[in-house]
């Protein structure tokens, strides 16, 4: 064998380096506090808000009532037939993410994403139990002993408590919150409620407590999509290398000119995903801007201008390097792509609002009997049978007039009234917030041919409302 063996190839697997971000205060940290408080508040409080809908409907402001197939959101009530409203909301959420990305970059990742909010929360618990970054690093390296076990047990119990509370709050959106809470603790809730809480407790505990930044870097598709959406006009957390480099601590008497970066490492110490922003824009950067807070503080202490790390577009960085003035913020946010997204987003929103405002709270479906398609009566008349489904989407009983359109000479009656009462119209009372089945027989004189038939509904209350359904009247000899 020859003496020189080839060097071993580099390992393909990178082991995770645990991240222990250091506490930092600053304007972006305070903004994060505010957004976290609002986001968690909305999540935990919303199911407990009440909204009076009268005696026939639940009084929970936001409720996804799967059992009764209703979706309530404050004054809006959506039936399964109107699910396109929910689809519209989801599309708005999607376009909204594009809009935010095009306006202010990865702000969703940095501030509002649940993974970010819960990871941030858990990292504060780490600091609360174990101390700040250095203490955490020491504890991590320390051998297992009573002290470490106690601290880990306490910390993980708090994780578990928060995780359980997170899962517990989720199921409140699907049933009356106070009732479900009572049922949950007395063991009477549906098995699916316990299963959901268990699954969400586990995912919160695992993703928030242990996976953390790996979710953003390896698991989440959104950073990939975002990196395709970012361009030289996007707001990014940017290290201005033209100003900072060459970095280093000025040694006394050294003649070597140095940049503004003193290589203190604070920007990497505070980073919740453990990256070095000075390496440039990268997928691990969720643009939480904590490194801006850190660097601004150091620059302030050194008496140098702030903004060595700053929200800036690549385009502006270059302009600034050449000494040109930066683009005003207004222009950074309102560029053509943002306007297109905003237009699209508002168009969907306005269309939905318009549809919501003008929708009828009355609907009709008709299923014609096909076996047999028609009946000959002893008088020679032809009878067809239909099952009408009247949907009264108001939370109160309504008088509704059903009438026939087409088929001259035809008259109808129901399975609860006698043939002798047959007429071109009939009036029924539809129960509140329900679909009312109505069995209707229509008889037409002998010799009537097959032809189209239309059922029409008209609500007889002050609000009114109409609906209709086109069907057929079948007769012998027809097609």
């Amino acid at each position, binding site marked *: 064998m020859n003496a020189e*063996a080839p060097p*071993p*190839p580099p390992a393909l697997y990178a082991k995770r380096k645990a991240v222990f971000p250091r506490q930092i205060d600053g304007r972006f940290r305070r903004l994060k506090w505010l957004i976290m408080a609002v986001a968690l508040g909305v999540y935990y409080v919303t199911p407990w808000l009440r909204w009076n809908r009268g005696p026939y409907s639940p009084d929970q402001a936001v409720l996804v009532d799967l059992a009764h197939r209703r979706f309530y959101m404050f004054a809006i009530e959506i039936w399964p037939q109107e699910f396109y409203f929910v689809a519209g909301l989801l599309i708005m959420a999607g376009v909204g993410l594009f809009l935010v990305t095009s306006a202010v970059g990865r702000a969703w990742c940095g501030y509002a994403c649940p993974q970010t909010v819960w990871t941030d929360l858990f990292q504060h618990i780490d600091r609360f139990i174990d101390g700040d970054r250095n203490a955490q690093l020491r504890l991590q390296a320390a051998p297992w002993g009573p002290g470490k076990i106690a601290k880990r047990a306490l910390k993980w119990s708090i994780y578990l408590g928060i995780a359980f509370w997170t899962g517990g709050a989720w199921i409140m959106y699907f049933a009356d919150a106070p009732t479900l809470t009572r049922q949950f603790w007395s063991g009477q809730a549906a098995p699916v409620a316990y299963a959901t809480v268990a699954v969400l407790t586990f995912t919160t505990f695992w993703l928030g407590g242990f996976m953390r930044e790996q979710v953003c870097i390896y698991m989440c598709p959104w950073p990939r999509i975002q990196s395709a959406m970012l361009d030289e006009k996007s707001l990014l957390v940017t290290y201005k290398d033209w100003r900072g480099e060459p970095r280093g601590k000025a040694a006394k008497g050294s003649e070597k000119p140095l940049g503004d970066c003193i290589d203190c490492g604070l920007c990497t110490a505070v980073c919740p995903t453990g990256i070095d922003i000075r390496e440039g824009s990268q997928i691990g950067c969720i643009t939480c801007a904590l490194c801006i807070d850190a660097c601004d503080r150091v620059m302030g202490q050194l008496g140098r201008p702030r903004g060595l790390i700053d929200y800036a577009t690549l385009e502006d960085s270059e302009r600034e390097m050449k000494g040109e003035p930066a683009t005003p913020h207004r222009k950074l946010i309102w560029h053509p792509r943002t306007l297109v997204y905003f237009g699209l987003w508002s168009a969907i929103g306005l269309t939905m609002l318009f549809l919501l405002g003008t929708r009828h709270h009355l609907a009709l479906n008709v299923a014609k*009997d*096909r*076996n*047999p398609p028609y*009946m*000959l*009566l*002893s*008088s*020679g008349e032809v*009878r067809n*049978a239909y099952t009408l489904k009247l949907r009264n989407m108001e939370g109160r009983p309504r008088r509704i007039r059903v009438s026939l359109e087409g088929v001259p000479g035809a008259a109808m009656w129901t*399975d609860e009234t*006698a*043939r002798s009462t047959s007429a071109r119209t009939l009036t029924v009372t539809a129960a509140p917030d329900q679909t009312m089945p109505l069995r209707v*027989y229509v008889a037409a004189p*002998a010799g009537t041919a097959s032809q189209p038939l239309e059922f029409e509904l008209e609500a007889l209350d002050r609000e009114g409302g109409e609906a209709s359904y086109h069907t057929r009247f079948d007769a012998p000899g027809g097609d």
Partner: protein
Amino acid sequence: MANKRIDEPTGTETMGHEWDGIEELDTPLPRWWLLTFYACILFAIGYVVVYPAIPLATRGTPGLWGWTSRGQLAQEMDKAKGEHAATLAALAATPIETLPGKPELMQAAVAGGRAAFRVNCVQCHGSGAAGSRGYPNLNDDDWLWGGDLRTIETTITHGVRFPGDDATRQSLMPSFGHDGILSAAQVDDVASYVRSLAKLEPAGAAAQRGAATFAANCVVCHGAEGKGSRAVGAPNLADAIWLYGGSHADVVASVTNAHAGVMPAWGAKLDPVTIKMLAAYVHSLGGGEASPQTPGTANVPAPVK
């Protein structure tokens, strides 16, 4: 094999064979995979022990728990029966005429009747109860024996012309042509008359000749105006509904060789509650008639025999 060696970049042993210089690493299975595999083996052993598993000559091993799919079905059927018990008991205690006054019970009866109809009745009457030639349509308003709840129940219980049931609906039309009671020409004339009653033919000379024959032979059962009689199940000849066809040839055939359709007496096969539910279902199909009421006692059901 002889050629096993440690592959340097990976540090893993090779399988020892090579094709055109291509070798295969003997990479051990991941531990999680092995553990899952062993867990599956343990589960399979437990499964074989507690569940029926190994097929033998006549039946399989029963398993410790004694579970069978047939037993589970029986359990579920028992449970369903238990759930329906209260409704069935209420139905059994309710005279059929009073059902329309109890909408919930009526609904349950119609639903139960629909299910029983699918099993017992569709073979002749069709899945939509529309019948076919010789098998009456149950949706229409034409009833041979009567269309109120009690009458339908009686017809289902005792059947029509069913040998072996003393209370069965009984009547027989003579085969006028076949038995030589009427000549072929007379039958033809009667057919013309009958069709003129239903306004299918103009009342011509043949019909006028047939009228006399009809009066002599047919009015006993079918009535002077041909409106039929429910007491003997004689069909109404003046309406638009023809069980055996309304063309001239069809009517001639019916008069020549009389029809005598048979329906089984279901009282011997089905329990009274099922029959009650069937009657309610048939009644609900759109042609049901109101129960007869004695004047002055509007809401009191007819006396039950």
